[in-house]
C-alpha cells in the first residue's frame, strides 16, 4: 500500500530518511535502501535543504523508484525561484513522486557554499499555494497545464525553544494546513513525556502527525544536541546510558528503536533519521519490532 493510502486510512506509517551522495557514486545509497526495502512504507529523500551541496532529491527519488521503493522528497525555496520550483515539481510528478514535504532551507551561511546567494523567491506558504494551483491545473503565471499533478503534501514543525515559539509554529502550521498540507512532521523526539504535551497542542491541526526519531550515534552527538538545543529534551540520564554502555553504537540503536516503539501509540507515523548512518536502519527496525 502506498504511503498516501496508509496515511489516509489512518494506519501507522514508517518512513526512513535516505540522503543522496555528494557525487555520482550511488552504490551506498542503493545498498542501504535495499536493506530496508519492504520494511518501511517509503523513504524520505532530503534535498540540499541542510545547506550541503549533493545530488538532488529528485535524482535520489528516481533511484529509489528504480529499486521499487516509494520516495518522498523535500522541497524548499532557498535555491530555486518559482519557475524552477514549478518545473521540478512537474518533473517529480511525471517521474513518480507522489508525496512531498515542504521544508525551510538551512541558511546559506551554515552550509558548504557560503558564498552562494539564496533565492527565496517564495516562502513555504507561497510554495504550498503554488502546489495547490498546479494541482488545479494552472501555474503561478496563470497559464493552463497540460496535465495536472496530484501530490500528498506534508509540512514540518521546527524545534521550538519555548511554549510561546511552539504556539507561533503551530499557528504557522495551521496556515500551511489551510494552504494544502495533509500531514505534519515533528522535530526529533527524545523525551516521550514532552512529546505527549506537544501532541496535546498539535492535535489542533487535525491532520496526521508523523513523529521524528534521530539515531544519536554517539555520546558526543547527544551532548552536542543537549548543549545547543536544550529544548530537544535530551536528558543527562540518556547521555549517561549511552556513555555507560559496553557497545555505545548499539545502545544508540536501541534508544532510537525504543523511541520508535513508544511513538507507535502516540502518533500516526514515524520518520527515522540516522544522520548518515543509514546502514544501521535495519537494526533500528529490528529492535523496534518493525
Amino acid at each position, binding site marked *: 500500500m502506498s504511503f498516501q493510502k496508509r496515511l489516509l486510512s489512518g494506519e501507522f506509517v514508517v518512513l526512513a530518511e535516505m540522503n543522496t551522495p555528494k557525487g555520482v557514486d550511488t552504490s551506498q545509497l542503493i545498498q542501504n535502501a535495499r536493506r530496508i526495502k519492504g520494511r518501511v512504507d517509503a523513504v524520505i529523500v532530503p534535498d540540499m535543504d541542510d545547506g550541503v551541496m549533493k545530488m538532488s532529491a529528485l535524482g535520489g527519488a528516481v533511484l529509489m523508484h528504480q529499486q521499487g521503493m516509494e520516495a518522498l522528497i523535500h522541497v524548499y525555496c532557498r535555491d530555486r525561484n518559482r519557475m524552477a520550483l514549478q518545473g521540478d515539481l512537474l518533473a517529480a510528478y511525471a517521474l513518480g513522486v507522489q508525496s512531498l514535504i515542504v521544508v525551510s532551507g538551512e*541558511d*546559506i*551561511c551554515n552550509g558548504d557554499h*557560503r*558564498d*552562494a*546567494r*539564496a533565492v527565496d523567491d517564495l516562502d513555504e506558504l507561497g510554495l504550498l499555494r503554488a502546489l495547490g494551483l498546479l494541482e488545479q491545473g494552472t501555474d503561478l503565471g496563470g497559464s493552463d497545464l497540460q496535465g495536472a499533478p496530484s501530490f500528498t503534501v506534508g509540512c514540518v514543525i521546527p524545534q521550538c525553544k519555548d511554549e510561546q515559539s511552539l504556539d507561533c509554529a503551530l499557528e504557522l502550521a495551521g496556515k500551511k494546513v489551510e494552504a494544502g498540507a495533509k500531514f505534519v512532521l515533528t522535530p526529533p523526539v527524545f523525551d516521550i513525556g514532552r512529546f505527549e504535551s506537544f501532541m496535546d497542542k498539535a492535535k489542533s491541526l487535525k491532520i496526521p502527525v508523523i513523529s521524528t526519531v534521530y539515531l544519536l550515534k554517539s555520546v558526543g552527538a547527544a551532548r552536542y544536541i543537549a548543549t545547543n538545543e536544550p529544548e530537544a529534551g535530551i536528558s543527562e540520564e540518556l547521555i549517561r546510558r549511552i556513555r555507560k554502555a559496553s557497545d555505545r553504537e548499539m545502545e544508540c540503536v536501541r534508544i532510537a528503536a525504543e523511541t520508535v516503539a513508544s511513538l507507535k501509540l502516540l502518533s500516526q507515523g514515524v520518520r527515522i533519521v540516522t544522520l548518515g548512518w543509514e546502514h544501521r536502519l535495519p537494526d533500528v527496525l529490528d529492535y523496534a519490532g518493525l
Partner: protein
Amino acid sequence: MITAERKPIEDLIQSVSPYRRILLVGCNECVTVCSAGGRKEVALLSSALQMHFMKEAKPFEIKEITLERQCDPEYIEELVPIIDQADAVLSMACGCGVQEIARRFKEKPVLPAVNTTFMGASERQGVWAERCAGCGDCVLGVTGGVCPIARCSKQLLNGPCGGSTRGKCEVDPDIDCAWQLIWDRLKALGMTERYEENIPAKDWRTGRGGGPRKIVREDLA
C-alpha cells in the same frame, strides 16, 4: 542617493483612514533630492489628504514636520514633543527612516508614504537611474566605473549576453547594455585588457547572501 516614489494617493488614503490624527514626517535628505518626500512633497500630500477627508466630511487632522534625516536617531528625537498628538505617523522617508521612527516609538503605528526603489543617480532633471546594488564588494575598478551588478539586467560579470543590440538591453530598449558601456569606457581609458580579465563567481556573503548587514566601526562606536 536612495531613491523613492510616492505611493498612489488612493493607497495613502486607505492606509491613513483608520486614524483621525496623522503626523506627516518628511526627510530632508535623499527623498528631498529625488522629490519624493521632502518639505514640498509633505505640504502637497498634506493638502491632498485634507481635501479628501474634508470632501468626505470625515474628521481629520494632520500635522507636518520635515526632519533633517529620518535614518538618524538624534533627529528622530525632534518628534518626542509632538508624537502624542498623533494616532499614527505617515513617513515620507525611505524604508530606513520609517523603521527608525517605528523603532523609537514602539506604540505608534508608522505607515510608509513612499516606495523605496534603488540607490541611484540623477541622469537629468526628473530622471533617476539605478547605479549601485550595495553588493558589498565593489568591482567598479575592474569594470571601468560601470556596475554590472546594478546595471546589467542579468548581473553578468564577464561580458554581455546575446541580447545586447546596438548598445541596448534585450529586457527593454530604453536600458543601456551595461557591458556595452563597460567596453566603451575601457576603450576610452585605453584599458581594454581589463575586459579580458575573468571575474570569478561572486562571493555574495558581502551582499544580502550573508543576511542583514551591519557596519561596526570600532574607532567610532
